């Protein structure tokens, strides 16, 4: 599981952001270290700012072979994090995320808990901005899902590189953060592009690889999902998603 470092001018901001992200995960949480503030001034008051040495220590604290992803709020946090890369002693990969602070952190904590790789988590977190924009309708909506054949649990298209499956969401609270993260993490093991859509309203669709985009669809219990895949592993991927959905993403019973 990757390690996560949270760099902020404010300890309160960092800790609240971490607490929010951890609400989305179960028992398995990634290692998270906060590097916030720049000590205290002559009056003993906290200095709002960032400290590259603290960031480096936080990186070393959570580093492992899976790598470390660093989230920063703004301004000097970025400079301090860049400088911390020179101070950190870990031999493992450390990456600075360009993602928006809160959205990126939430996505990363959830995906890390689901065992996703540094590459996948970095990419997903960085896409957090477009997921929110799409939800607000201020950016181009995601592309229409490929035209699906008649509803069938599993159907191979003629060229064998397309696959479609459907399943109904059985979880009480719908496709929330944890199932979204499971789907996105699972997609990492397939050579396939899968679109998840509402079978009754195909305009509501998102890439299965994007936890935040899936969450943005706010798909409720009882929604029939359509998984439309392309690529070498398309059939296996849509079948896996169908099975996960019917099994309630491990949340039943």
């Amino acid at each position: 599981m990757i390690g996560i470092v949270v760099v902020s001018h404010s300890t309160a901001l960092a800790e609240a952001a971490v607490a929010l992200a951890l609400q989305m995960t179960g028992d398995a949480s990634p290692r998270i270290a906060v590097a916030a503030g720049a000590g205290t001034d002559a009056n003993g008051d906290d200095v709002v700012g960032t400290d590259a040495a603290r960031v480096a220590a936080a990186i070393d604290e959570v580093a492992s072979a899976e790598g470390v992803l660093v989230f920063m709020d703004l301004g000097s946090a970025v400079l301090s994090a860049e400088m911390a890369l020179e101070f950190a002693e870990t031999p493992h990969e450390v990456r600075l995320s360009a993602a928006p602070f809160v959205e990126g952190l939430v996505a990363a904590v959830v995906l890390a808990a689901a065992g996703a790789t540094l590459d996948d988590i970095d990419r997903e977190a960085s896409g957090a901005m477009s997921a929110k924009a799409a939800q607000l309708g201020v950016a181009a909506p995601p592309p229409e899902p490929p035209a699906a054949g008649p509803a069938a649990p599993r159907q191979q298209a003629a060229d064998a590189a397309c696959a479609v499956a459907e399943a109904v969401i059985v979880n009480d609270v719908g496709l929330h953060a944890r199932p979204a993260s499971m789907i996105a993490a699972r997609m990492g093991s397939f050579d396939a592009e899968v679109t998840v859509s509402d079978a009754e309203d195909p305009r509501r669709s998102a890439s299965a690889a994007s936890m935040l985009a899936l969450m943005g669809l706010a798909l409720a219990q009882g929604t029939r999902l359509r998984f439309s895949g392309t690529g070498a592993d398309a059939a296996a991927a849509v079948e896996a998603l169908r099975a996960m959905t019917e099994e309630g993403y491990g949340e039943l019973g």
Partner: protein
Amino acid sequence: MTVQIDQLVDWLRRFRALVVQNQALLTELDSAIGDADHGSNMARGMNAVVEKLHGESSETVDALFKGVGMTLVSSVGGASGPLYGTFFLRFGTSTGAVTALDAGGLSAALRAGLGGVVTRGKAEAGDKTMLDAMIPAVDALDSALAAGRDLAAASAEAAAAAAAGRDATEPLVARKGRASYLGDRSAGHVDPGATSTALLFEALAAALAGPAAAAESDSAAEPGPASAPDPTP
């Protein structure tokens, strides 16, 4: 002529004194185009440096400046922490474990510090940053040394070039840092980072000016705790 480690310590004390004396000015400049914390941040950082100098003495130039750099990194809080921190860390790394610098060594160390700031800030001349004072200062020092001037004269020319570079930031439109959010409205204000860098070279020139100036340093370097009003809400 060589620069002894005591003179380098004197440079740091003088820089701290100038920063504290000009804290209100730095903050006022930063309130126009930044977040009004450059004066308090730099004063806090340099006060921490001088406090560390009181507590422990460094045997070598590299140890001295690495300590200074790390102290700034951990006490300034704002972007000037990593920027000045990198300047002094690279300065120290450049010199090696020596107890004095000759003219070439000082020039190389300043050049290394400048390179560190360029790398860290990803800025260039004309972006309305501290580099607009630092680049002309280091260039002027090198030119003066190449023309056969001694370190006292060369550092005085560096200080004059830094001040001119600072003044020349006034009409510029900021392209880096918080001030860049203002776009064209950043023009018409002197850059606070270039102003503190001009103080850095003013302090260097004073420290290298010779024994007469060094005699003043104790009184100049020990003002009371920073007391300028901080308009930060």
